[in-house]
């Protein structure tokens, strides 16, 4: 992974000093709340319902064992001994005392970590495929470009006060595993017919209040020109994005208002001024950064060493089927450690678990791991011969739920239990659905279903792209849940579709939600054809059969359910 040099270290320590001074001025009453807010946000610090939340950056989801141990230690010393992995592949600590924050950032800096630009109206953490560098369908490793973009965006003086937050994702594979089409900028690494690397550039995607699938505005930008082209996009957005209405300030609204063609024309006009020149990424820089992501020293194995035998052990076979992924090197697999199980908020991880995972990453790999935007962890380089041993250990720590990609592998935002933006709680909903679908045989039979839950329109839980999406809404001060189906984030689990889910109809009370999900599943099971996934059935038969079933039940029992909820 990328390692800091003296310059990176100096910049980061100067950032910590800058923040420490700002914090001290704020605590001394010299820096008013309103003026301190964007400064703390750009250091990852939110004010939540009960305490401050610190969102620590995990650039493109890549962590070392050393870094994870430090996160565990920080969570233990400054928080309540656990953290929450988020859909931006970051780690959030929910119970932080403001006066501690400069010390926490200093501690992070010691392991080349920070919370820079994990919030605020600026370029946020850049996300990509959690299997980067080991995926079998990769065109080129996206991490060097992600790191170069990270450095470019870090403290960019022109783009620190954009109209609104700005998210960039990179996909470099046949399958889009980064929900790239739902970002302010999506970069698809491609090869030209001549074999040159470049990026296909999509803009204006996003979830939130106005979900939009982004539009490709340029099919091919030479990879060396990526920074210049992104700069042109950001300059147009910074100048002309709306600032009069928080809900209309994202770039997608500007792209929609102008039309993608006109937006592209303005970007191209700006780009013509900045193309080439000093901003072009040099081959030397690509080589320097790419060297940090060179393949680790894999052992070479014969065909026998790549053979995976799970015969006769159903539980193990299930885990292999769901949680183990192909690897480009024979004799290796990637393993997804599930952070989804009954009784735990999706994405939550205790300090003890973090320390164990750090150990596992060293003992079953090269001391590196990944955070997924689905809120799980990945050990990228596990020898096939040691999978069973790893399974035993992971099971012991509650990290081997064999549910990756299944209904209970839900994306869930922290919701009303923590977040002051939320209209409703998310975690109890995910809990009640998880409890309802505890039968693993049934779960496996249902196959791949993405169930995503957001506690409000900001869509941190990606409900718009859930095959089943649940959105918490506030009605007259009580919590209700709107259910949609048919969303898809572009991954193979949804057949490669990108789609925004369609709302079934009137929303449901919390106790009704597991019943509603059960109804949706019942319709699917009754209607599915051989091997058809939920999303395929939903696409084929449409909304109506689901609606009919769900609202029939709701009519029967809704009054009681409503009373119970109240």
């Amino acid at each position, binding site marked *: 992974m990328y390692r800091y040099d003296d310059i990176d270290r100096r910049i980061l320590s*100067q*950032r910590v000093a800058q923040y420490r001074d700002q914090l001290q001025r704020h605590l001394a009453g010299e820096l008013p709340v309103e003026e301190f807010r964007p400064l703390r946000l750009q250091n990852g610090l939110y004010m939540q319902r009960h305490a401050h939340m610190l969102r620590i950056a995990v650039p493109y989801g890549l962590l070392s064992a050393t870094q994870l141990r430090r996160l565990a230690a920080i969570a233990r010393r400054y928080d309540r001994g656990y953290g929450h992995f988020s859909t931006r592949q970051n780690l959030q600590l929910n119970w932080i005392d403001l006066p501690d924050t400069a010390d926490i950032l200093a501690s992070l800096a010691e392991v080349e970590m920070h919370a820079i630009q994990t919030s605020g109206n600026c370029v946020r953490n850049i996300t990509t495929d959690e299997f980067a560098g080991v995926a079998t369908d990769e065109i080129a490793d996206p991490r060097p470009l992600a790191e170069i973009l990270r450095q470019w965006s870090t403290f960019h003086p022109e783009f620190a006060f954009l109209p609104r937050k700005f998210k960039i994702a990179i996909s470099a594979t046949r399958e889009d595993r980064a929900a790239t089409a739902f970002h302010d900028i999506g970069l698809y690494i491609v090869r030209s017919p001549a074999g040159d690397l470049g990026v296909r550039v999509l803009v204006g995607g996003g979830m939130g209040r106005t979900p939009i699938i982004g539009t490709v505005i340029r099919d091919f930008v030479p990879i060396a020109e990526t920074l210049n082209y992104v700069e042109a996009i950001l300059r147009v957005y910074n*100048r002309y994005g709306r600032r*009069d209405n928080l809900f209309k300030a994202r770039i997608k609204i500007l792209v929609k208002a102008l039309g993608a063609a006109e937006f592209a024309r303005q970007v191209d006009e700006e780009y013509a001024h900045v193309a080439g020149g000093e901003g072009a990424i040099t081959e030397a*820089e690509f080589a320097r950064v790419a*060297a940090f992501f060179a393949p680790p020293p894999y052992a070479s194995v014969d065909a026998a060493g790549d053979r995976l035998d799970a015969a006769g052990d159903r539980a193990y076979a299930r885990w292999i089927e769901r949680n183990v992924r192909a690897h480009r090197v024979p004799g290796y697999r990637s393993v997804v450690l599930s952070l989804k199980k009954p009784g735990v908020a999706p994405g939550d991880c205790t300090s003890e678990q973090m320390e164990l995972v750090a150990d596992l990453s060293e003992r079953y790999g090269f001391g590196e791991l990944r955070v997924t935007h689905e809120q799980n962890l990945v050990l990228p380089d596990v020898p096939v011969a040691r999978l069973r041993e790893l399974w035993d250990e992971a099971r012991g720590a509650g990290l081997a739920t064999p549910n990756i990609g299944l209904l209970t592998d839900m994306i869930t935002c922290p919701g009303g239990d923590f977040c002051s933006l939320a209209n409703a709680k998310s975690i109890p909903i995910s809990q009640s659905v998880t409890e309802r679908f505890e039968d693993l045989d049934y779960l496996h039979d249902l196959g791949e279903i993405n169930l995503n839950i957001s506690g409000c329109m900001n869509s941190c839980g990606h409900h718009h792209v859930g095959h089943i999406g649940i959105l918490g809404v506030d009605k007259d001060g009580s919590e209700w849940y709107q259910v949609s189906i048919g969303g898809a984030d572009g991954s193979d689990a949804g057949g490669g579709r990108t789609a925004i889910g369609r709302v079934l109809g009137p929303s449901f009370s919390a106790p009704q939600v597991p019943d509603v999900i059960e109804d949706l599943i019942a319709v699917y099971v009754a209607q599915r054809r051989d091997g058809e996934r939920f999303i395929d059935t939903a696409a084929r038969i449409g909304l109506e059969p689901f609606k009919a079933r769900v609202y029939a039940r709701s009519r029967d029992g809704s009054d009681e359910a409503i009373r119970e909820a109240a």
Partner: protein
Amino acid sequence: MNPQSAVHDTEYKRSDNAQAAHVAASGRASGGHVLAADGSWRADTWRIVREDDAEPVDGDIVPLARYVALAPAQRRRPIGAWIGPDQDPSALADFVDTLPIVAVDFPSFRDGRGYSIATLLRTRLRYAGPVRAIGDVLVDQLFSMKRVGISEFALRADQKPAVAESALRTFSEVYQRSVDQPVPLFRRRAVAEPR
């Protein structure tokens, strides 16, 4: 001009503090000083004129539209122009060789359009004279303002001079190119072997 720029600012309306600072800065007798990008202080001899219709006198910095509408003879006098966040600096393209000063207005420190405007003034229009930040100019944004080519800062009245001076020295190195450093770090960084 892009129609998108003609939005009405409500979210980013001028803060009360900024209003007060403007009042303070509007009279030359206030004895104001501006901080230069090199950390030195200079006596302020300019007056910001917010009204569109006033007849400018020497030493005034007038609204962009007012400046553009001046008679050529008036533009040879020491009169500057200030640019609001929704205005296009390219309107000054014909005057960059003679303009004695351009001010970039930050009605709210959260309104980041001024950074692009300053960048364009320097890189696109090649304006070489002083560029001054006016409005809600706070110490914690000075480093970025300096980077995009703003050369002097009319700080909001309540900002502490010593804090402002040290804010200009926050970082000794920067990653990306901008006006003050047109060569990105990756072109300056010695190619090192990964450890």
